[in-house]
């Protein structure tokens, strides 16, 4: 069922050249209009033809250190390289400034008209709230960081903003390695077993993953004396904390304490120790705190420890 055509030559109203020139101008005008009404499209076009440079943020800037990580945590799963909901990406400084389908989402210096800030500040149940329902909302500190950054001009170079909440430092907790710990504890395991039986609750490992030891004889009171501490001396080099407060230990224990070469914390309150014991601690370079409340220890004897930065409680003039 093909159609048949007739042909001939007749001049039209416009020449093809004039017509297509007008079409080209109209097309350019249309693209220009779209660039004006859609700033994101406008930036894309200008950057594409090289009339506009791509904005970059410095690595040390407030944006790079504080703002970008917030976007990375909460936004880029939907507004990143894989997905661009509403034609919006928040995974680069240029993209953040570019905005989305409708308009820029950041207006530097204008927090009230910055759609991004408005959206993240809406109540969680609001349909327009970002991140959307079901996703983790931004913390108040994170919102403040973004608000301050916009208020200070949404800069890619500004390093610090006064009043910005302090960054949350992520601490990586090392994983426990039971096999390694067991290996470290192996040389002292037999001694530990024996001493733990003899002094229940007095000697323990410092932590689950440590072969260092703590002793706490304070609950033994006067029943724990120099001879008992002497019994613990085979493990002295592993002891990092010793609480002997209220026990019957005296200066006779000074050599055992001196043998605790990794000791960090020593509590001797209410004991019979004197300056002689403190002098014996001169070699305990790891010591950080000493408590000698209710003892005859003098401030003079403690002076060298204080000079080393050891925190001293009690003794003579007090801390």
């Amino acid at each position, binding site marked *: 069922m*093909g*159609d048949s055509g007739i042909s001939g030559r007749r001049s*039209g*109203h416009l020449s093809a050249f004039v*017509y297509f020139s007008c079409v080209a101008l109209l097309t350019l005008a249309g693209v220009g209009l779209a660039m004006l009404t859609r700033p994101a499209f406008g930036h894309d076009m200008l950057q594409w033809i090289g009339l506009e440079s791509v904005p970059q943020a410095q690595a040390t800037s407030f944006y790079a250190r504080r703002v970008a990580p917030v976007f990375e945590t909460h936004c880029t799963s939907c507004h990143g390289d894989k997905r*661009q909901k509403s034609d919006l990406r928040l995974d680069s400084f240029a993209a953040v400034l570019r905005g989305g389908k*409708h308009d820029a989402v950041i207006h530097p210096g204008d927090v009230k008209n910055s759609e991004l800030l408005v959206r993240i500040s809406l109540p969680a149940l609001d349909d327009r709230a970002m991140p*959307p329902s079901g996703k983790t909302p931004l913390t108040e500190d994170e919102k403040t960081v973004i608000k301050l950054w916009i208020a200070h001009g949404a800069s890619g170079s500004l390093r610090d903003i006064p009043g910005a909440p302090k960054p949350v430092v992520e601490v990586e907790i090392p994983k426990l390695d039971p096999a390694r710990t067991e290996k470290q504890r192996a040389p002292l395991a037999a001694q530990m077993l024996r001493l733990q039986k003899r002094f229940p609750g007095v000697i323990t490992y410092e932590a689950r993953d440590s072969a260092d030891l703590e002793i706490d004889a304070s609950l033994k009171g006067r029943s724990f004396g120099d001879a008992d501490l002497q019994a613990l001396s085979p493990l002295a080099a592993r002891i990092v904390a010793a609480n002997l407060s209220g026990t019957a230990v005296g200066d006779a224990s000074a050599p055992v304490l001196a043998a605790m070469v990794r000791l960090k914390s020593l509590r001797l309150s209410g004991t019979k120790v004197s300056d002689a014991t403190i002098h014996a601690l001169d070699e305990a370079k790891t010591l950080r705190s000493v408590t000698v409340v209710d003892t005859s220890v003098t401030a003079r004897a403690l002076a060298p420890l204080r000079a080393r930065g050891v925190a001293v409680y009690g003794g003579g003039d007090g801390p």
Partner: protein
Amino acid sequence: MDHKPHVRVWDIPVRLFHWSMVLLLCLSWFSADQGYMRVHLVSGLTLLALLLFRIAWGLVGSTTARFSNFLHPPRRVVGYLKGLAGGERIFHAGHNPAGGLMVLALIAVLLAQVATGLFANDGVQFHGPLALLVSEDISTRLTDIHGLIFDLLLILVWCHVVAVGFYLLVKGDNLVWPMITGKKHRAHLPEELNIVFTRLYIALLLLAVSAGIAAWIMIQGESIL
């Protein structure tokens, strides 16, 4: 033989389809842009119904509506365009070979647009009626394609408008008015015409079936929820 100056070339279904497409495309664009997604859904499903109807009408409809009437081998299209560039004035009762290609392209792209829209989501509170049948990743990918096809659609529509303007302003052949009234001046038609118009009730029947399919898809979407 009838010798009235104007001859009917387009039936009512083709004309209504054409202008409905114009309106629904504008409505779909506007509603998506403004976030009126329920309107966008209804507009998209209406487009789907009309596209299905148009495909059926291209098989059993009136002469000028049929694919067999306006789809030509590429060699013929190239030959037509060469003649056009050479200043020839070749008249057709229905779509010319280049126009036929444009119709095919528009229908194909619109179908792809509607199909991807069925599985799309806006990432917040709205998704196409069949989006839950596929994974979120696929839905998001189809949403991206939905956006890209729209750009292609805009380019095609612009080409279509430019071509119609070319015929009107350069060739002196008004293609718009016949698409409104259905009639074309005999001076702009081949001498020999053999246009058979399919009965309107068949169009209504096909439209009802197409609308039923679109409605069924929407109901399926609701039932998934």
